[in-house]
């Protein structure tokens, strides 16, 4: 409850800035139109004109809200014009990619912390892998998968996984190395095996790092999926929706899809945060 007031305050401030921005950015166009038509606009008329454009440079909040509302509530969920339908498609690939990516990140981190060969050899190449501009090779990934007969969700999920494994890897390596000397020594003095020290010391210590990384990773997975949806032939999903909106200069549609994607990302991050809070409380780490 004590969140409502602050959130609303910030929201109001943001909306205000947004409206001002919308007027400022859309005004040249409105003036241009008016002067082409041979008349000039009074200030109220100008403001009014900036709120009503069909392809505004920056759509006003209420236009975006209407776009989202039409996309969410104005259609049957199974309709191709429903944002829910597109979001569902994006979500499934995001979750699959996130699962694969974070699992890979965790496993690699475990390997790196326990094996010197992996520590020395994997990390530089994991970094290099992330510098490969994904949009550039995404079409190739899709082409290669397609030539193996795999299409649909899997190629997108692989791109999502590609982007999401790295934050998890970096965070987990740091987290798994966080236990201080005395804690490691205790384990040592009990002759705990690597596995035991992992489950009982390294992993619990790494939890705060892990969750910070997972939050980044799930957002990254969504970006990856959307990127994957662009060259995937732009058939369905929020990415395709963004692209087609962009292609036809439908700014309102872009922003509506953008907000749907951001809402999805925020929801996903919130879910991870929720799991984090429960887990850390269970572990007694959150006081």
């Amino acid at each position, binding site marked *: 409850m004590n969140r409502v007031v602050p959130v609303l305050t910030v929201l109001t401030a943001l909306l205000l800035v947004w409206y001002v921005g919308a007027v400022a950015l859309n005004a040249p166009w409105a003036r241009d139109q008016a002067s082409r038509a041979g008349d000039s606009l009074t200030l109220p008329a100008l403001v009014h004109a900036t709120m009503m454009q069909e392809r505004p440079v920056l759509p006003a909040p209420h236009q975006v809200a209407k776009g989202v509302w039409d996309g969410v509530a104005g259609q049957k969920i199974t309709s191709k014009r429903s944002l829910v339908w597109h979001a569902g498609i994006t979500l499934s690939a995001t979750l699959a990619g996130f699962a694969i990516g974070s699992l890979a990140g965790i496993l690699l981190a475990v390997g790196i912390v326990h094996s010197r060969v992996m520590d020395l050899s994997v990390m530089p190449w994991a970094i290099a892998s992330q510098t490969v501009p994904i949009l550039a090779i995404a079409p190739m990934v899709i082409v290669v998968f397609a030539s193996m007969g795999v299409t649909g969700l899997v190629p997108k999920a692989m791109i999502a996984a590609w982007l999401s494994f790295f934050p998890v890897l970096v965070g987990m390596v740091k987290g798994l190395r966080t236990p201080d000397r005395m804690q490691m020594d205790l384990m040592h003095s009990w002759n705990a095996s690597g596995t035991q020290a992992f489950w009982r010391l390294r992993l619990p210590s790494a939890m705060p790092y892990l969750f*910070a990384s997972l939050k980044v990773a799930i957002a990254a997975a969504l*970006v990856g999926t959307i990127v994957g949806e662009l060259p995937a032939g732009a058939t369905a999903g929020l990415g395709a929706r963004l692209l087609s909106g962009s292609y036809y200069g439908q700014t309102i549609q872009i922003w509506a899809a953008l907000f749907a994607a951001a809402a999805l990302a925020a929801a996903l991050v919130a879910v991870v945060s929720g799991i984090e809070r429960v887990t850390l409380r269970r572990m007694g780490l959150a006081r």
Partner: protein
Amino acid sequence: MSAALPLIAVWLGALGLNTWIARHRGPIPAMLVPLIFGATILILWEMACRNFAIPSVILPAPSQIWAAFTGNLPLLWGDFTQTILKGALSGWLIGAAAAVATAIAIDRSPFLQRGLLPIGNFVAALPIVGIAPIFVMWFGFDWQSKAAVVVVMVFFPILVNMVAGLKATDALARDQIATWGASYAQALVKLRLPAAMPFLFNGLKITTTLALIGAIVAEFFGSPTRGMGFRISTAVGQLNMPLVWAEILVAAIAGTAFYGVVALVEKKVTFWHPSQRQ
């Protein structure tokens, strides 16, 4: 099947060699192991391209890529300055500064924390692909719009880590500084910022590579006729895959170097953290 056998043989051989070298301590094995690992991948790649006759428009062999790399150095250098130095680096610096400042602002005020963080999460989660065309519209075709994309892209990861870091001090240390009647700013500078450094660097490291991706990808949505993203999309259209991969090679070298520098600074700054002490 028989085409795969030599590949497996090479892979096993390299693995064995590396395992043996890794038993030795010191800087030379530490250099050697990743190099051998990388060399193995390259050899396997080259062999795969030849043995399976993979067409170069799908996947060029390393030797072809290298030829494209050495043959186009001035071009690649121009793209590098445009995309990495102007787009990625400036965006990363601005984004990181903004994220740290926001984290501190949020941390300072519980009101903002409750109000801004959820909305901040939301705004920062706007996918770049949607933002890029808008930013091109707002900030023009040149590197400024790319930097803006990078700012948005790196902001969230750094913010998340920095907020976590500012919460990371233990109760004793906080009590300690309270007894000295430290002002908020003093507690921040002397205690909480240093304690947050391991987390901050976590975020900074993750975003070095994100910054590159952002700058390159943003060029797909409109650019002048130079830059790595421009070159890649153009070269893909021309089926000049070796040049595409040469650009990717540049990105990989730049990204690894960028990451390496940040990691080096991290080592200097957080020398006291158990993960650095070992």
